[in-house]
């Protein structure tokens, strides 16, 4: 099953790359989820509709795949609510301050060879690995249980 997962991962990645290409070619926009969501929340004039439609499409696409293959992803249970809320706040503030997330910097930015996106991606992956280590193997092990 591991090989199958790799193939799904690769195919899913290709679809994400196609989505980013389509949005840029068709509408001249970068498919960065944090920028699109942040833009909806800040409501700039006349610029909210396409963002809302993109996000609605995102949910529909995920729902369609889940309907086709319900066993693919199992919902997580038992993760502490405080940690989910704190993680959300950190990701919300961080992606707006740093002008992007995994999609805007990690996919679109790297594809454009943007130096800012290269630095941002290196920083958020490194910090995420350190935090995961701290929580699973380091001095913070046990905090989430």
């Amino acid at each position, binding site marked *: 099953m591991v090989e199958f997962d790799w193939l799904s991962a690769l195919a899913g990645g290709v679809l994400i790359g196609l989505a980013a290409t*389509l949005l840029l070619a068709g509408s001249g926009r970068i498919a960065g989820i944090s920028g699109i969501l942040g833009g909806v929340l800040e409501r700039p004039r006349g610029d909210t509709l396409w963002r809302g439609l993109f996000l609605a499409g995102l*949910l529909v696409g995920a729902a369609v795949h889940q309907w086709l293959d319900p066993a693919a992803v199992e919902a997580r*249970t038992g993760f502490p609510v405080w940690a989910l809320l*704190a993680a959300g706040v950190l990701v919300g503030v961080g*992606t707006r*301050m740093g002008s992007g997330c995994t999609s805007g910097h*990690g996919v679109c930015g790297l594809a454009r060879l943007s130096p800012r996106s290269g*630095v941002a991606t290196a920083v958020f992956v490194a910090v*995420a690995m350190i935090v995961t280590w701290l*929580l699973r193997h380091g001095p913070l092990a046990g905090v989430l249980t």
Partner: protein
Amino acid sequence: MNGLIAVVAGVLFGFGLDLARMTDPERVLGFLDIAGSWDPTLVFVLAGAVVTATVGFRLIGRGDSWFGGPMRLPQRSDIDRPLVLGAALFGAGWGLAGYCPGPGLAALVQGAADPAWFVVGLIAGMTAFAVARRS
């Protein structure tokens, strides 16, 4: 037409995220956990996405988009403090719960509380940052 482009791109993106198992935060944490039983799934997702987007963006070129006028590409190339600090804060949140914005939103369709609490925090954080920047 821009609305249609946005919907189709969103559907492809969301379908791809769930197909790639990115809506499973434990799989993402498995990738981030280099000291544990490392899960390479995310490498394949990122490679597939970046290679496809690199080729796609090359083919598009730098002219106008089909329906949305000129390409709105970020123009900056300076590495400043907010970029690095913001990326670090984002990484801390990502490593804490295993969700980044796209998968967190897409995981809402599972109908479970786990991604919903993350998205509540996400929206609160983004709103707080927007308010702080305006004042």
